[in-house]
């Protein structure tokens, strides 16, 4: 990885895949973080508002004769609002995860089942032809087990 970087390959063109998270290494942190907690809070707020409206406005929109008894009451409104707040937060988290992690994506252009056998896949997308040999060398020196070339480089 570092070898590739020192060869001047653009960070965006390096693909890494592994079967466990490697937070300790630089590529584990290479991703720009998304304000996921804030999105969750936002989703919660949306959910909560929806819940509040559901518990309050829709009840009023369906005027049921209750002989003077309340149709909406504060405690139930709070409960429904609360539950839908949490639901909103959870769903937003999931949606954020799916979108930012680019899943579901069933068509894989670049993947190797070896990844789930414990190996780490490091690929360079569309390297310049003249740089190929150099990159391969560098990867080998960095301890790569196997190098495949599929119009791209991958070191495992």
């Amino acid at each position, binding site marked *: 990885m570092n070898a590739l970087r020192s060869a001047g390959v653009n960070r965006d063109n390096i693909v890494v895949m592994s079967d466990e998270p490697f937070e300790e290494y630089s590529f584990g942190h290479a991703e720009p973080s998304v304000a996921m907690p804030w999105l969750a809070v936002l989703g919660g707020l949306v959910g909560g508002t929806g819940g509040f409206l559901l518990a309050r406005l829709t009840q009023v929109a369906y005027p049921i004769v*209750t*002989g003077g008894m309340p149709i909406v*009451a504060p405690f139930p409104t709070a409960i429904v609002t609360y539950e839908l707040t949490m639901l909103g937060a959870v769903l937003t988290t999931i949606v954020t995860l799916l979108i930012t992690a680019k899943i579901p994506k069933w068509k894989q252009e670049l993947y190797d089942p070896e990844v789930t056998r414990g190996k780490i896949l490091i690929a360079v997308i569309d390297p310049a032809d003249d740089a190929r040999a150099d990159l391969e060398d560098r990867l080998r020196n960095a301890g790569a087990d196997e190098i495949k070339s599929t119009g791209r480089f991958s070191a495992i």
Partner: protein
Amino acid sequence: MAHQWGMVIDLDRCTGCAACVVACHAENNISTVGEDQAARGRAKHWIRVERYYEGEFPDVRVKFMPVLCQQCDAAPCEPVCPTFASYHTIEGLNGQVYNRCIGTRYCANACPYNVRFFNFYNPEWDKPLNLQLNPDVSVRSVGIMEKCTFCVQRIKASEIQAEAEKRAVKDGEIQPACVQSCSPHAMVFGDLSDPQSEVSRLARSSRGTKLLGELGTQPKVTYLQRESWHGAENA
């Protein structure tokens, strides 16, 4: 102001004859479930005469207390119903909308008086008994709750009649089946929102108590009795 139907039951007059029970069954198409099912607790009586005994044999006094839906103003059965099948009508009744009932039986659990009844089986009348059914009252099918309605069909009929004649409903014009059949005249029915009605006057009586009134259900049935009666309060 809409009517607020209420009832007064004078326990000092009640003889425990159970004519009200029979009349109610006949009027409201309440099915009998048979000996066997009754023994298993599936009997339905929208009004029942509770008997309590005081003292030791041979010095025993028996107390009769007809218990029907108290048509509470703050009814525990109403808010718990998820579908508004049990709800408060404009005229202050605890309405039971049979077609909306999905049979959670939550209302029956919440009711402190145990005056809500569930159709465990589809009711059945052997021919020709089916011909005795009152056409003004629904026949409740399996899986739904039913309860005393203060004979809402009679109330509605009187109201429609009064409206056709362009007059107000008169006091005493409406009599639920139980009131009508009560020979000692222990039961009185009428409009509590009219302070001049007989039921209002009796409900203000110093002999009046509410059954389980301490629960805050605000029943619209007032029981009259001469002396304080522990059976009603401490049961």
